[in-house]
């Protein structure tokens, strides 16, 4: 047993706080938009130049001039603002965004993140990921704990080219949650996914980590 994609997104949604400005990456992080707790006000930023992202448009009402960073058609809200890519990354790089939730290929115990290229395969580019991890106040990575072949994706050192060095604050996998001290304090297991034992997560993790499970 382990967490599903939806359960991982739900766990990531627990990192939201009222009044937060948040940037969500593609994949599981996108699901978090549907899991904002009732009564909590969270403003979603899209790095292509929009603050205050609304839901997908109704059928027949899509506007080609209104897309998110994943190039999906979306809608605006009464509080929405639009701006250039330079202003957008001033928000991101300048530390004005509270939280970034994004996917990963590998995370190291020092909080390094690799999520943009695999050598020898076609490189599509990093998009805004390097800016997000370098500038957003708190960075949460959501990814599967292991590759399909079984290798741990939470490693002592990333073997893939880095997106950022010492940038990850929290790692949520299908097996559990790790807090990471980006200033060199290492990783700590703080939660186990439902039905996952400490032995299982120890066996399946290459990274070294402390344990601080509550309850």
């Amino acid at each position, binding site marked *: 047993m382990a967490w599903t994609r939806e359960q991982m997104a739900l766990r990531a949604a627990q990192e939201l706080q009222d009044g937060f400005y948040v940037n969500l990456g593609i994949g599981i992080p996108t699901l978090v938009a549907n899991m904002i707790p009732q009564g909590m006000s969270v403003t979603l930023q899209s790095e292509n130049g929009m603050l205050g992202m609304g839901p997908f448009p109704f059928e027949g009402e899509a506007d080609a001039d*209104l897309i998110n960073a994943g*190039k999906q058609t979306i809608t605006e809200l009464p509080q929405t603002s639009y701006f*250039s*890519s330079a202003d957008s990354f001033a928000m*991101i790089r300048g530390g004005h965004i509270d939280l970034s939730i994004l996917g990963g290929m590998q995370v190291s115990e020092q909080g390094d993140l690799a999520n943009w290229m695999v050598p020898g395969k076609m490189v599509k580019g990093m998009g805004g990921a390097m800016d997000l991890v370098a500038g957003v106040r708190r960075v949460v990575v959501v990814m599967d704990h292991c590759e399909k072949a079984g290798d741990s994706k939470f490693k002592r050192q990333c073997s893939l080219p880095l997106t950022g060095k010492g940038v990850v604050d929290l790692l949520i996998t299908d097996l559990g949650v790790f807090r990471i001290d980006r200033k060199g304090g290492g990783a700590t297991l703080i939660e186990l996914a439902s039905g996952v034992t400490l032995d299982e997560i120890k066996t399946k993790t290459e990274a070294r980590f402390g344990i601080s499970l509550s309850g």
Partner: protein
Amino acid sequence: MKSKIYPDAAAALAGLTFDGMTVMVGGFGLCGIPEHFIAALRDSATKNLTVIGNNVGCDGHGMWQVLANNQIRKVLASYVGENKILETRYMNGEIEIEFNPQGTLAERIRAGGAGIPAFYTRTGYGTAVAEGKETRQFNGEWYVMETGLVADLSIVKAWKADSEGNLVYRKTARNFNPMIATAGKVTVAEVEMMVPVGELDPDQIHTPGIFVDRIVVGQNYTKHIERLTTRPKQATFGGAN
């Protein structure tokens, strides 16, 4: 003053294109791309272009047409997915791609247009992006030096213009266009509508006319949508992002 208004994109590009030139192109994906100037650039058959923009179109659309016409030698972009020809040529070593983090690319263009030769950013520190670049510590944090970018020609797309070249963009079609408009030795803009001088609110102009040399009103915009995503009418909330 000589009019900035040209009858069509081909007329506006006349005398501005040459082999080996650097061209900056506005847009994010296919949103806010200068469709008519891209077609005119393709028809100009100019070769060995260095193209600067967030993307290089996608299969069948946008700057892909210029790529498919074998006109591009080098690309500076942040993301080049959904583009089979580019993938094949890159893997075969037939085209050079310099990947830039999206915010670094936006700021390099902004800096170039503002006369700033270089700046420092935290983005990319400790990654392949920083290799060969000067790094420096400020207030205990490490930063990477990135250089400003300028182009021989900038092509942008706006929503409205007046004959002075003042531009207003629409929604997320703004993206890279405002910075690109500032960074070309020559900047040409295509718009969906031209309004009389005085109609645009001076407080709401996104790109002041000083940055725009030539203007064209484009007809019959395709505005292809890459990922049409909708929700059924009865749903209360179908999800954001």
